[in-house]
């Protein structure tokens, strides 16, 4: 009997390892052992999943320093708004993780707009822009809010005239583009290139990916397994930015039809909005396209119910999850590990 057990031991070990590997790469991670050390090892492994979250390189060329410097100056300059009191940074405030901390943005004339300010953090990697994806490039996006009547309300022609009359901009345009001519295309390129430098720094989650086991708590490791398994979050909050830029009706409250305005007739786009990044997400409450969910706990409740509203175009990935109270806490604990350490941001002196 003893001999037989020895003979089967390698096979049994092999099966055990295969089951562990399968659970890490599949729908959910099951930690059935009563041995805490073994459970901890399984939670720290999850190697197949971890490879999906490694930082990707920019798809565009690295922005030039001169473009970035001009773009930074324009981004913080309130003269890009009709009332000269609102810059890009007014809503995309670095102190609020490049958002504004409000449920819905406030635009020209202090009027509240329909949607929440999306962060520009890691926006250089995005494949579509605005909540409804109406811009296909970062350059298109950068020009939009400047001229939008409800936002900065400065038509591009007037923007060019204003910038031409500010002598201090001439050397910045010259350094960036070789001449002092101001065009809206140059403004767009410079702002977009500055935005490409707005990148989250390493969070505890990244240190854990790199092998530092104590970088995140055990509850967050369980949360990571749930995020990729039972809770189905990673179907859309995929990759190192924790978004695939996809558009879905997730059953959030509100009358805003989202991307359906752009793509009428497609039921799946009715009430569909872009999947936001979860990098630094704990710093950006309230949530959703209109701030209708105040906390991360409330967001988890929405998904656990399979949406607060069930419309015909509801995403098939949104369905009741039957999460336990512990599951919900673990998911929140995981999302907290995506917060980068505070980073100081250089605010430029504005040219006169």
């Amino acid at each position, binding site marked *: 009997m003893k001999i037989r057990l020895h003979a089967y031991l390698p096979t049994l070990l092999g099966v055990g390892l295969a089951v562990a590997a399968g659970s890490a790469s599949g729908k959910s991670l099951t930690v059935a052992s009563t041995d805490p050390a073994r459970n901890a090892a399984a939670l720290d492994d999850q190697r197949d999943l971890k490879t999906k979250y490694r930082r990707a390189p920019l798809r565009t060329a690295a922005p030039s320093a001169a473009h970035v410097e001009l773009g930074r100056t324009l981004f913080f300059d309130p003269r890009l708004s009709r009332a000269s009191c609102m810059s890009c940074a007014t809503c995309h405030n670095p102190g609020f993780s490049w958002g504004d901390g409000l449920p819905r943005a406030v635009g020209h004339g202090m009027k509240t707009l329909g949607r929440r300010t999306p962060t520009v953090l890691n926006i250089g990697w995005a*494949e579509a822009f605005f909540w409804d*994806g109406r811009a296909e490039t970062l350059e298109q996006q950068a020009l939009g809010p400047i001229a939008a009547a409800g936002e900065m309300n400065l038509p591009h022609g007037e923007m060019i005239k204003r910038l031409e009359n500010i002598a201090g901009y001439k050397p910045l345009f010259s350094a960036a583009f070789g001449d002092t001519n101001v065009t809206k295309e140059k403004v767009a390129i410079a702002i977009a290139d500055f935005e490409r430098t707005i990148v989250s720094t390493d969070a505890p989650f990244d240190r854990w990916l790199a092998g530092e086991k104590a970088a995140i708590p055990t509850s967050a490791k369980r949360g990571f397994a749930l995020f990729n398994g039972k809770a189905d979050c990673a179907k859309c909050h995929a990759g190192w930015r924790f978004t695939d830029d*996809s*558009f*879905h009706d997730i059953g959030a409250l509100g009358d805003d039809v989202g991307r359906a305005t752009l793509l009428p007739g*497609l*039921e*799946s*786009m009715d009430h569909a909005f872009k999947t936001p990044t979860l990098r630094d997400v704990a710093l950006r409450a309230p949530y959703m396209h209109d701030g209708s969910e105040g906390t991360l706990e409330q967001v988890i409740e929405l998904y656990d119910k399979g949406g607060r509203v069930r419309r015909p175009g509801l995403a*098939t990935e949104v369905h009741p999850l039957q999460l336990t109270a512990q599951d919900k806490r673990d998911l929140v604990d995981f999302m907290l590990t995506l917060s980068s350490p505070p980073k100081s941001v250089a605010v430029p002196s504005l040219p006169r």
Partner: protein
Amino acid sequence: MSLRILSKLALPVLPVLIVTGLLLSRVSAGEKHVVSQKGKSFSITELKVKVGDTVEFKNDDDVSHNVFSVSKSQPFNTKMQTPGADTAVTFTTEGTVEVRCAIHPGMKLTVQVGK
């Protein structure tokens, strides 16, 4: 008697039946192409087909897709395709058709429809 009635009824619609039959045979005679959707990508980014060819859009992914045309010359919409679903689209007009997934903006396919 019943045969005579049938022939009387059938005679006026005979040309319509023949034309429909010809059209159907033309469509069914077209080549079939398969475009897979996997990893939130189309299996190819450019496809050349002929008028009358059919393209089967197959969802081999673990998420839903919604393939549609942004070109007015050949509008179509597969609607939401859950994993495993496939939808056949016959290309009837010569020209360039830009195909997208409404859900995943990185999924882009250009179909060149020739004679």
